[in-house]
């Protein structure tokens, strides 16, 4: 009940923080898609590079988020952006890259070799093969990677409040420092609900792009 009362009295503030949170997640995952998908496609054609890139992206994932923000502060301080939106976005982009690059890479690699053989044998150029056959087949798996990235960055994004990036993490951070339990709960619940909603919405988008074949086999 206290939680409900909290949301009733902080309604517009909560909405503002949610939007801020979404902006953070949207910007990072958006940039991660624009960079990660082409990179994933590229390494799927260049096996020698694939292992290195995937290992690097995997290593980034192992850095605790607090440490990541800590690393970025001195670096970005050089351009007076040590705290705030920019370091948060950069950290979240780095976290999003792995699921997106990996899924793109695997999806393209896993296109049935006979389908690729037929495409080449019928006279498709490498570009036509990629755009007309490989990418359309890969999209459901790439979408699954995006979904993982979004849910993950919504969670990690809560910690970005500590470096002044705003978002729903503000409730958690302030609640902890003020020993205000209801505020902590409000932040945690809001982040969870946001993650669940995003997951459900993206799942239905993913279904839209998935041929029914996957459902039957």
């Amino acid at each position, binding site marked *: 009940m206290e939680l409900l009362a909290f949301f009733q009295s902080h309604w517009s503030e909560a909405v503002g923080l949610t939007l801020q949170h979404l902006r953070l997640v949207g910007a990072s995952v958006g940039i991660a898609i624009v960079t990660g998908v082409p990179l994933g496609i590229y390494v799927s054609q260049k096996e020698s590079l694939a292992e290195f890139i995937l290992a690097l992206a995997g290593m980034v994932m192992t850095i605790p988020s607090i440490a990541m923000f800590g690393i970025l502060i001195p670096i970005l301080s050089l351009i007076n952006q040590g705290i705030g939106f920019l370091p948060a976005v950069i950290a979240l982009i780095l976290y999003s890259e792995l699921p997106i690059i990996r899924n793109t890479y695997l999806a393209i690699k896993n296109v*049935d070799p006979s389908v690729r*053989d*037929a495409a*080449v*044998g*019928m*006279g498709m150029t490498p570009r036509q093969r990629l755009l007309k*056959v490989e990418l359309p*087949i890969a999209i459901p798996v790439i979408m699954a990677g995006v979904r993982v990235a979004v849910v993950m960055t919504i969670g990690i994004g809560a910690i970005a409040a500590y470096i002044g990036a705003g978002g729903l993490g503000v409730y958690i951070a302030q609640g902890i420092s003020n020993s205000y339990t209801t505020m902590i709960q409000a932040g945690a619940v809001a982040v969870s609900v946001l993650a669940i909603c995003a997951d459900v919405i993206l799942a239905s988008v993913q279904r839209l792009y998935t*041929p029914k074949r996957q459902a039957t086999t």
Partner: protein
Amino acid sequence: MIEFQHVTKVYQSAGATTKAVDDVSFAVEEGEICVLLGPSGCGKTTLLRMVNRLIGLTNGDIIVNGRNINSVNPVELRRTIGYVIQQTGLFPNMTIFDNVCTVPKMLGWSRAKMHDRYEELMVMIGLDPKEYAKRFPWELSGGQQQRIGVARALAADPPVMLMDEPFGALDPIIRDHLQREFLKIQQTVKKTIVFVSHDLDEALTLGDKIAILKSGKLMQFGTPDEILSAPANDFVSSFIGADKSLKRLSLFTAGQLLQSRRITRICSSKPSVAVQMDTDLRTVLAHILADPNGEVSVLDKTGNCAGVIHYNDLARFLEDDSNEMEPAAN
């Protein structure tokens, strides 16, 4: 016409060189089906994939309808050569219509022309054009998918087709059916076809010519009858097996035997079994073995007796390697 001239493919790996295809020369005439036959690893698929430059030549030349394939841009070349593979390779993200019209689309055909061609092809392969246009490959059975694969390869009416064990993954009944259907289609489209198979019966059924390969070398090239009646070496003999006589009998009909042997024995003995003029000799033999006197009568189209075939006639026919009969068109 496809000419293979001293075609050689050498693979080099870790210092070892393997000759996947070793100095192979023969020619596939216009409108003929040539079956590349041999055990796995004999280089038949490599040879096939060299024709549309999926695999490059180490030595020698392949001339397709007067053009050396190495003088043509590979992408352009492939669009003029139909390509069918065992796993069908249909694009799962495209409808049947889009699959069939893949090459026409790349060649920039108009929508109307593509539609006409699509309907024509679907009728040819015996599938309802309207019913399947918007369906996806996974909704079709294996046999139907393979028919679509053939239709897709025929779409832009290429003069030459390459087929890599297209019926190999199907069960025997469907395979038999599709082979027959395919021969019927070939009689109207008259493509020059290179067809890879490891199945002797399939090669005998489909091939106008058969090229038998072993470890990259051409063992024998000839008509099915030439290969069965005069195997060039021990490998070919053992490959065609002990029942080669039976296989050879199935290439000819009762009518042909009557004509060539001038068997005019009148039907006085009234054998218990009668066969038609177009019954193949293998079936005739089966009937003869069941008959107490070892003979069958052959009926002409009007149902009158045209002659009697005795067991000795078949035996003599098989002994004579140089008979001048042309195998029956299947």
